[in-house]
């Protein structure tokens, strides 16, 4: 081993993968040789915008010279183009392009919909844009990931036909907003979808297509749908979402955000839809489906039986379940403790599910194979030392430990929590932050005052017990009203050698302590969303 730092040409591309833009720009100024090696990396991602000043952030952006771009097409892997830019930026062919994103803006889209203009002839500027868009997809058949976001110039038939018949191996389609405003274009859109393996369709506006029910999507393993009420003329009807789901026999993961069902006028049709979905599950329509993510799949019927019935009928080995604003009650919980759900590794329960502190604890004390668990809260007073947590394989835990406002002897009770946490030695991620402030009536247990009385994370309260968590890489306690300080920080640096990310308010920290953290490669943030 030489011990001298060298960076020969051959390894520079490998290093470049791990550098951010600032680092690469610095490398470009190091030497001619460095410049030659690192410039291609800078051109891997190119973003074309339509004005010099970003209207939202007010950052002045330097426009890209199209002639310079023409000389570097071989380096571009990720091309993001906003609407209303010069046509020249659409006439480019990138031989190694992996990701292509076309972004419009949602306010332009909704204003056209309101004026009922999105079905009539396009204004001239949009016509050019439609032609431009078609040219761009025709010239870039290597694209793997296509992202289409709120395009006022709705893609036409040719756009989708080109993708369907000429793209080599598309994988991911992420579409938000309008995708087709004529029946012909809609047919072409769905046909194009059959080529992808992952579909994300959010707030989709698409003309009714008679062929949807005749198509199969054999390649789709991942589906993410956000349903729209279907009352506006061209929003995809909820029943068509179900048609789509049923046409994906290889489906492995389903995300279904049914926000639109929240209005009571639609609850009847929502019930029918859920029933049909449940029946399909019963009939083992999706033999590979093992990961479910539901949001707002509740209906006005009380008791939340639907989810329980769904789980009861589930024929496969479920490995992951994520729920937000879906009634998860005692019966559902009881089901999860059944050996049938031995396979469950990931369970994430967000706000609006009505999960109580006792229910969350029940999971920790009864499900030995859970590896990732998230819930809203656990009352420290509910933690019982005589009922140990059995999930020894737990790698990631996100839950806020709080005291009921009127609890005396908090210090003693805190130690119960520490004793249990200390045994979870496989933990790489521990997030004790407070993320569920926006309570709904479905979370009756969470009172605003409780949120202030969180588990005390000071050393004198018991943090030291967590020295057993030697594999910890992420520790978070955002929004949890802590008074931790330098002593706690030093302790963490000393005992959690693998720690890479720290999120939460640290009081009275000296600048040098933060720099020492950075030097060790630990990223520190005040806050950030939990998983």
């Amino acid at each position, binding site marked *: *081993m030489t011990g001298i730092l060298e960076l020969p040409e051959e390894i520079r591309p490998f290093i470049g993968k791990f550098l951010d833009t600032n680092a690469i720009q610095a490398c470009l100024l190091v030497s001619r040789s460095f410049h030659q090696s690192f410039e291609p990396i800078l051109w891997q991602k190119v973003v074309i915008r339509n004005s010099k000043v970003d209207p939202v952030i007010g950052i002045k952006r330097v426009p890209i010279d199209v002639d310079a771009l023409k000389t570097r097409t071989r380096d571009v892997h990720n091309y993001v183009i906003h609407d209303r830019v010069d046509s020249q930026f659409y006439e480019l062919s990138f031989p190694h392009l992996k990701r292509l994103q076309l972004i419009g803006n949602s306010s332009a889209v909704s204003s056209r919909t309101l004026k009922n203009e999105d079905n009539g002839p396009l204004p001239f500027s949009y016509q050019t844009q439609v032609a431009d868009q078609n040219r761009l997809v025709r010239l870039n058949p290597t694209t793997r990931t296509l992202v289409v976001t709120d395009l006022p110039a709705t893609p036409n038939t040719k756009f989708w036909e080109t993708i369907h018949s000429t793209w080599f191996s598309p994988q991911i389609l992420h579409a938000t907003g309008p995708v087709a405003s004529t029946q012909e274009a809609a047919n072409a859109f769905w046909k194009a979808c059959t080529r992808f393996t992952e579909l994300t369709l959010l707030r989709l506006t698409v003309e009714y297509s008679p062929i949807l029910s005749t198509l199969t999507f054999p390649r789709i393993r991942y589906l993410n749908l956000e349903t729209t009420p279907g009352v506006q003329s061209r929003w995809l009807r909820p029943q068509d979402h179900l048609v789509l789901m049923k046409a994906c026999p290889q489906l492995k993961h389903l995300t279904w955000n049914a926000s639109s069902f929240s209005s009571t006028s639609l609850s009847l049709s929502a019930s029918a839809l859920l029933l049909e979905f449940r029946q399909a599950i019963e009939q083992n329509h999706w033999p590979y489906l093992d990961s479910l993510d539901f949001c707002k799949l509740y209906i006005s019927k009380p008791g939340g039986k639907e989810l329980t019935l769904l789980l009861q009928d589930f024929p496969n080995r479920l490995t992951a379940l994520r729920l937000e604003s879906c009634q998860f009650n005692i019966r559902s919980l009881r089901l999860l403790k059944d050996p049938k759900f031995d396979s469950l590794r990931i369970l994430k329960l967000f706000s609006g599910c009505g999960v109580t502190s006792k229910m969350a604890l029940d999971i920790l004390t009864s499900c030995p194979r859970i590896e990732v668990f998230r819930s809203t809260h656990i009352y420290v007073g509910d933690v019982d030392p005589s009922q140990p947590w059995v999930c020894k394989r737990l790698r990631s835990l996100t839950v806020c430990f709080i005291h009921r406002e009127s609890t005396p002897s908090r210090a003693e009770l805190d130690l119960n929590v520490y004793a249990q946490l200390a045994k979870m030695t496989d933990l790489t991620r521990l997030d004790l932050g407070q993320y569920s402030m926006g309570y709904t009536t479905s979370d009756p247990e969470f009172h605003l005052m409780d949120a202030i009385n969180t588990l005390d994370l000071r050393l004198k309260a018991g943090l030291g017990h967590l020295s057993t968590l030697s594999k910890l890489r992420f520790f978070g306690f955002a929004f949890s009203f802590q008074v931790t300080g330098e002593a706690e920080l030093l302790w963490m640096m000393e005992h959690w050698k693998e720690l890479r990310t720290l999120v939460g308010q640290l009081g009275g920290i000296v600048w040098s302590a933060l720099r020492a953290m950075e030097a060790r490669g630990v990223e520190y943030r005040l806050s950030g969303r939990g998983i």
Partner: protein
Amino acid sequence: MTVILVSSDNQDFKVDKEVAERSILIKNMLEDVGESDSPIPLPNVTAAVLTKVIEYCEHHRNDPVQVPEETDDPRKRSNDIEEWDMKFMQVDHEIILAANYLDIKPLLDVGCKTVANIIKGKTPEEIRKAFNIVNDFTPEEEAQIKKENEWAEDR
């Protein structure tokens, strides 16, 4: 079961098959060759580097095999290197090259991330110092480069 690996300078290394197979290159070679006992030549790797590579593979012999994830963003993850790995990587570029040749992705990633961490946050002059490089730009050239690359946004 053991296999024999031969470095470019003709030194033999006896290694457990399970450890050797952390290298996808070696794994494929073994599959092609079958039950033969013949030693595997590695003409691109010196004994000194091969010793270190074998040490890495021994330490990580029980790690789960990584599945390549194309959609992952490596830039965000250069801060997740294990402490043992950090000490192991004496920032020797030869290990990185060997890891690439032998197709041991985890070792390649660790090596690259280590070097990337050295570069991050440094000015061009600091980078030159770190890698012993002479500045061969004129001030005009430097100004031009700065200007023509201003457009780049966050990756």
